[in-house]
Structure formats: structure tokens, C-alpha cells
């Protein structure tokens, strides 16, 4: 009888664990499309094993204690000893084991932290593709300095090549997060943070601002189109040829707090301002000081919360 319960609990958690791990494949963090997200998934999976062990051990002990020592008639008197107050040996053991687990978790964590600070192809002669990702209430500007093009609220990237995102913000703090490709990093005005990501598989992925920054936050999203190098080049060319250049006047209007549809231009705003520098930090505030207090009265729209894609 006693064994039965113990086994029952144990198999319950085993099944739970299996279900959990197998069900994970649909979850975007567990379905990586690039090396960064992959290494993060690996780290999470590794840690999850330890966590499952801890949870199982504690739950089994807990179930055993509560079941065995609950107050009930006809208990053996040897099962009750109110004066146990400690046991040095066992206390040392359950201090050392968690410590060992922490060490086991720390090593790959630190390793991965350092790895993610550099492009995966470092050391080879392939340079990362540089994209300035600038957040402005509540939209995204992606500037490709090499290609001299800029997009608003959507992104095209070639597969198999490191992307070096240079993150900054025109106003509030945001975070660029494309969970299928890897974790997020903050965009801040007046400084530049760098995030390396890479897509291995072509596809369309969800990207967004994940750091709350006001009324339009939920809609500050974008699509990432990962495509082969050739397709990417074609796309760049089409933008360069078909789209107008971005004027400062138009850019200043776009900066005003609010939502916009997707857009593309055959030049970038970097010619006159880089919000990631100390000079660029108050560019938007100076122009739109009064607009930040206004409400959009934003409601949820059925189906899509994405910026409308226009003329692509």
C-alpha cells in the first residue's frame, strides 16, 4: 500500500514531465529558428532537467510526509518523536547538493552569456549584416546603412548570416524581441545596445517590443521575413529602386507618438540623427513634447494586432 502511493505519485510526475517536454515543441521558445534561440533552448532544457529532479524529489518527500504522518487513529507510537531538533549530517547534505546544482547551472549559463555577446560566425571573414533598430512610440524603424534603405514596422533578413542589431530608441525604453530567433534586449534613447541574432530557416516570424512603454505598446509589433540571400538581395534592390527617399520632414512626422502602417524608403534617417548617441537622445522630445500626453483611445481590433501591411 505504502509503495503503491509512492509509485503513483512518481509516475504521475513522470508522465507530467513527458507531456511537458513533448508539448513544448509548439511553443515558440522551444521551436528555435536560429542558433541564438537554439543555444537558449538548450540552456533552458538543461536547466529544466535539474528543476524537474528538484520538483520530483520535493514532491515525493512532501507526499510521503503528509501521508505517513498525518494524525489518525492507531498510529504506531514509534512514528512520533516531537523532540527531533536537527541532524548536522543531513543538514550539510541538503546544503551541499543545492550548491552543487547551482554550480552545474552556472557554468553553461556563463558560457552562453559570453557566447551571445558576439556573432556566431566570429573568426570567419563573413561580416554580420548591420541593422539599426530604432523604437519610437509605438513603431519600429529598421535602417540598413550598407544598403541605404529603411523600413518601418517590418524587417527582411537573409538566412544563414549574423544580423547585428544596433538598438536604440527615440523616446521611451523598448525591447526588441523575436522569440523564434532569440532573446530580447532593451532599446534606450541616448545609447546603443547590440543584439546578435540569426535565422537558419526561411519563414515569417513575429517580432515585437516586449517592454511596456505606454498606450500603443501592445501594437508595437512587426513581421520578420527571413529569406535566402538571393531573395534578400532582390528585395533590397526593389526597395532601392521603387521606394522614395526618406525626408527629414517626413521622418519627424513619423516620430510623433502613434501607430503607423508598414513603409519602406530608399534612404535612412541616420543621415541626420542617430538616437543611440548622446546628441540624438532628445531629438523626438524636442519636436513632439506636447504630443506625448495625448491619448489614442486604442481598442483591440479583431483578428490582427499587426501593423497593416501596405503595398509590399
Amino acid at each position, binding site marked *: 500500500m505504502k509503495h503503491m502511493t509512492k509509485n503513483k505519485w512518481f509516475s504521475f510526475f513522470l508522465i507530467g514531465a513527458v507531456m511537458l517536454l513533448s*508539448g513544448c515543441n509548439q*511553443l515558440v*521558445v522551444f521551436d528555435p529558428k536560429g542558433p541564438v*534561440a537554439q543555444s*537558449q533552448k538548450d*540552456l533552458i532544457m538543461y*536547466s529544466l532537467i535539474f*528543476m524537474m529532479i*528538484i*520538483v520530483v524529489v*520535493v514532491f515525493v518527500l*512532501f507526499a510521503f510526509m*503528509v501521508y505517513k*504522518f*498525518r*494524525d489518525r487513529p492507531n498510529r504506531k507510537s514509534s512514528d*512520533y518523536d*516531537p*523532540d*527531533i*531538533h*536537527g*541532524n548536522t549530517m543531513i*543538514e550539510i547534505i*541538503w*546544503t551541499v547538493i*543545492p550548491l552543487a546544482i547551482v554550480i552545474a547551472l552556472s557554468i553553461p*549559463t*556563463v558560457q*552562453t*552569456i559570453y557566447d551571445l*555577446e558576439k556573432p556566431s560566425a566570429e573568426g570567419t571573414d563573413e561580416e554580420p549584416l548591420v541593422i539599426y533598430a530604432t523604437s519610437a512610440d509605438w513603431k519600429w524603424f529598421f535602417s540598413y546603412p550598407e544598403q541605404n534603405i529603411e523600413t518601418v514596422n517590418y524587417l527582411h533578413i537573409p538566412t544563414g548570416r549574423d544580423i547585428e542589431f544596433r*538598438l536604440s530608441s527615440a523616446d*521611451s525604453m523598448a525591447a526588441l524581441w523575436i*522569440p523564434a530567433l*532569440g*532573446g*530580447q*534586449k532593451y532599446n*534606450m534613447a*541616448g545609447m546603443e*545596445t547590440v543584439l546578435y541574432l540569426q535565422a537558419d530557416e526561411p519563414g515569417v516570424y513575429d517580432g*515585437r517590443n*516586449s*517592454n*511596456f*512603454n*505606454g*498606450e500603443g*505598446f*501592445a501594437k508595437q509589433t512587426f513581421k520578420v521575413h527571413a529569406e535566402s540571400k538571393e531573395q534578400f538581395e532582390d528585395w533590397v534592390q526593389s526597395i532601392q529602386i521603387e521606394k522614395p527617399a526618406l525626408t527629414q520632414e517626413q521622418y519627424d512626422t513619423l516620430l510623433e507618438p502613434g501607430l503607423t502602417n508598414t513603409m519602406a524608403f530608399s534612404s535612412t534617417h541616420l543621415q541626420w540623427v542617430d538616437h543611440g548617441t*548622446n546628441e540624438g537622445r532628445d531629438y523626438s*522630445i*524636442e519636436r513632439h513634447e506636447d504630443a*506625448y*500626453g495625448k491619448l*489614442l483611445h486604442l*481598442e*483591440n481590433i479583431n483578428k490582427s*494586432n499587426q501593423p497593416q501591411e501596405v503595398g509590399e
Partner: protein
Amino acid sequence: MQLDEFFVTGEPLIYGGMVSIVLVTSAIIFLLTYLKRWGWLWREWLTTVDHKKIGIMYILSALAMLFRGGVDALMMRVQLAFPNMNFLNSQHYNEIFTTHGTVMIIFMAMPFLVGLMNIIVPLQIGARDFAFPFVNAVSFWSFFFGAMLFNISFVIGGSPDAGWTSYTPLAGAALSPGPGQNFYLMGLQLAGIGTLATGINLMVTILKMRAPGMKMFDMPIFTWSTLVTSFIIIFAFPILTVALALLTIDRIFGSQFFTLTGEGMPMMWANLFWMWGHPEVYIVILPAFGIFSEIIATFARKQLFGYKAMVWSMILIAGLSFLVWVHHFFTMGAGALVNSVFSVSTMLIAVPTGVKIFNWLATLYKSRIQMTTAMMWSLAFIPSFVIGGVTGVMLGMAAADYQFHNSYFLIAHFHYVLIAGTVFACFAGLVYWYPKMFGHKLNERIGKHSFWWFLIGFHVCFFPQYFVGLDGMPRRVFAILPEWMPLNVISTVGAFGMGVGFVIFVYNIYYSYRYSKREEKGDAWDGRTLEWATPTPVPFYNFATLPEINGRDAFLSMKKNNETTFDEERLEPIHMPSNTGQPIIMMAILAFASFALVFEWIGLAVIGLIGTLIMMGIRSFDYDDGYHVEVDEIKKIERSARGL
């Protein structure tokens, strides 16, 4: 300023709120007048300096705040389960999650625990009251008015909407003009003063007013947890005070600490906030640990296993809690070295926490567990909290946190620790000490119903959030993608389950008030610690006499030796502080000044501040030394309380 700018207009939800506030207030005023209770209210409650009554006022306010924060929560859950109904628009949703978070941490969890500490700690150490009863009353009123000030933003001026973390530059004057954010700053500042004073008060009380013979390592574990908590409060709250003050000066007087102009540094807010904020989460969990330890020892009918390890692990946790704040913004790009160091320090906290878990389990070994409601809350805490703890460690691994941060995974983590830790402890503690406070137990059968609803509701609500977080759902959004819908609907169902549990809990208070058997002795649960040595209701002076204490579980040995807290041979007059209306008046004036600052009416604010200073001056000239309870009166009170 126009009247229609002053009151929030044009929102049906808010009109409803206004009407209900007016109705409830008039109902209370009417009842008090009709029952001729104004004098009673003033004499017995508003001017009291008795730690037991102040504690009860804390707990009542905290329950009210739990209700308010809970309604916020349910409104958010409705919006997320049916986003297309547009029950809340974006702005409403932002205001509601901001007030929800702030109310729950600052105006619910802390006051609830402080209320329990107020009532129990002096009783556990055999003290007459706090070291500074007057200051204790000031603390309560500063919390109370702070909470009122924050809550009134709902109908006057507009609620803050930048999250409970109030990150700059969003929360600065440029991006968030208007009074909303000022309500946050002034409400927290006012309540924070009280919290700091309480921390000092508790520390002196515990260090200086222990019963004769009670050594530090003889103190009940809840008292220990309070001591450690007061240490964290004293070293963490001044940081919050400064952070709030700087942002206030930014917003009202145009300085440039956190601004985008004038080379301000918005990032510094996040640092200051979390240098307070992480210790803060331990301020609300350590007392919870203490409560669980007391209850588990009592109902396992067994000594706490590893008392010293329990104490040292709390001290270690308190120390470490100041060294991990960066884990709240690993994604700020501080560099690999910084993130590595803070990853490791964060994960290290799990070691002393794990030790505590194992000690609780070992306490159960060879015990005789009585399944009372208080015990069930405490037992349920163990596995639930472990889930919160292991996911905390996962969040502590910076490289992985880049994917978890700002997502529902994080939301699930902190609700698993805060609800299964703090909220369960508040409920458990209230149920456990209820007979001491009110002279009757809460009904056990109804209590268990409430427990099961709440526990199951809690897991149904928050467990799915780990997964929806891993699926990329960010926190603080009012609109969601279709693929996140199913899990969100499940969450909402769970949230309503918790709501039912809370309603049953409150109903139980009413039911037990009407029907529970009154306590005749003071020792409702066959307790181990000194609070159970007092008769019920506890005489206002607490202890007539105290035997020399030697060792832990003082009351247990008193029972063995047939000792009580009423030894007629050793009676002496007891010195007591007098009631006073000064604390409530002083803090009301300060609240007025804060309110004026919220609307940036500088003249009025200055008048209010001067008024507060004058009140402090009056206090300085007040040489009222209290009064003595004479031996005859003590004899009378004790004899009748003990049925002698």
C-alpha cells in the same frame, strides 16, 4: 484647473466606481451616526496606540486592498479571455495593471504582514507593547493615508499607468504628463515613511523588550523573521525614498535625473528601483516563512527542525537580497561579466531557500499532522512555492532570461512565489491567530472550502502562464494573438476560482462572528509560544507577570511547569502609554500636503508641510508620560479573564 480635469469623466466604469464610493462612504457615516458610534470610533480606534488594535486596523485595510487589487485582477483576466469584447481599452488596461501591482505589493502584502507582526511579535516576546507606541500609530496612519491617496487617483485626476515599476523615461514628466504618476510617487512616499518607522520600531522592540531570560536564539521563529525583515526594511527603504523623491523633483520641479533632456539618465531609475525592489520581495516573503514555520511546528506537534539553520538561512537570504538587483534587467546590455556575476549571485539565493524547504519537510518527519485550515495553507505552500522557486532560478540564468524576461513566464514566477508564499501566509496567519485576535476561531469547514477554491484556482490560473510565456506572450498587453487564447481562457477561469475562494473566506469571517464558539482559554491550538500564554481577549497590557524564560517554545515549558502569566505574588503596577489623536491628525495634514503636491499646488503643499512640522513641534512639547495600571486592577482583569 477645471473641475472636469479634476474628476475623471466619461468612463462608465469610473462613474460606477464613484457611485459605489459615495454609497459606501455615506452608508458608513450613516451607520456610525445612527448607532452613535463616532465617539467610540475615535476613542477606541482612531486614537489608539495599542499594538493589537493597530494590527487589526492594518489587517482590515489590507483585506480591503486585497479586494481592490483582486477586482483589478479579475478585470484584466476578463479582458484577456475575451479581448474582442473590448471590455477595457489599452489605457484602462495599463492603469489597472499598474494599480493592481502597486496595491498588491505596497498596500496589501506589506500591511497584512506588518499587521500580523504588530499583533503577534510583542506577544511572542512577552512585551507590553512596541518600543515606541506613538510612532507605531504614526506608521499606521501614514500607510493608511498613503493607500487612500493612491486609491483616490481612480476617480480624481487619473490613475498612474506606467506599471508598478514606473520605469523612466516613460514615467517622467515629458512622456507621462498629468497627476497620475504623481499619485504613485506621493502615495508610496507617504506609506514608505511609515514602513521605515515600523522597521526601526520592530527592531528596537525585539532587541530591547524581550521577556527576562529570552535569548536571541530562544526567540520564536516568526519574531526572528520579523527582526531580519526589519533589517532589510531599514537598509532598503531609504533607497526607495530617494528614488521617489528624485522622480518627484524631476516631475514637479523640472530637475533632470531621469529625463531624456539635460543628459539625464533614465536607466538609473531601474537600478534604484530594484536596489530597493529586490530586497522588498524578501520583505514580503521572510515573514511568510516565519508564519509557516510557527504553524507547521504547532500542527505537526513537533519542534521546528533545524531552528538555527532556519535563522541563519534567513540572515543569509537577507544579505544576498541586496546583491542581485541587476537580474531584473539582464537585458539592459550591461555586458557579459556583469550579467554573469549577477546570475550566480541570484542562483545562490536558492541554496538557503532550499535549506528552509528541507527543514520544513524534516519537521513533518515523525510528526503528528493535524489538518487544520491554517496547516493546510502552510502545507500547500511547500510544493507551490518550490515551483515558483525553481522557475526563479531559471530566470536567474541570464542567457535564458533574455527569452523569459517581460513575458508571462515571469508573471507566473512571481505569482507563484508571492501568492503561494505571501498570500497563503497571510491567510494561514490570520486563521491561526484569529482566536487570539477576536476571541473565536474561524469556522474550519468553511475555511477548507475557501482553501480548496483558492488553491486550485491559483494553479489553474498561473500554471498555464508559464507556457503562454514560452510561446512569446509578453506581459502588460491588453490585446493578444489568437494562438494564446486557450491558455488565457483557462487562466481566467482559475482567477475566478480564486475570487470565489476569497469571497468564501470573507463570508467565513461573518459566519464565525455569528456562530463560532467563543474561546474560554487563551490557548486555542495548544500552542508553543508565548502569545498563547495570554488569556483571550488579551488584556490591553498583555502580560501581568512573566516567568523567567529559558529555552525555545517558552509556553510549552510553562505549561509543563504549571506556570501562567498571572503570578499574584509578583504583580507590579504596569506603565502604559496614553491614547492620542496626534498621529492621525499629523498624518492627515501630511496627506493633505501630498495631495496638493500631486496636483502641483505648491502653496498648499507648503502650508501642509508647515502644518506637519507644527504637529511635530507639539509632540515634542508633549510630556504626557502615560499612566499606571495598578495591581488591584490587574488582579481584577486577570481573574475575570481566567475565570478564577
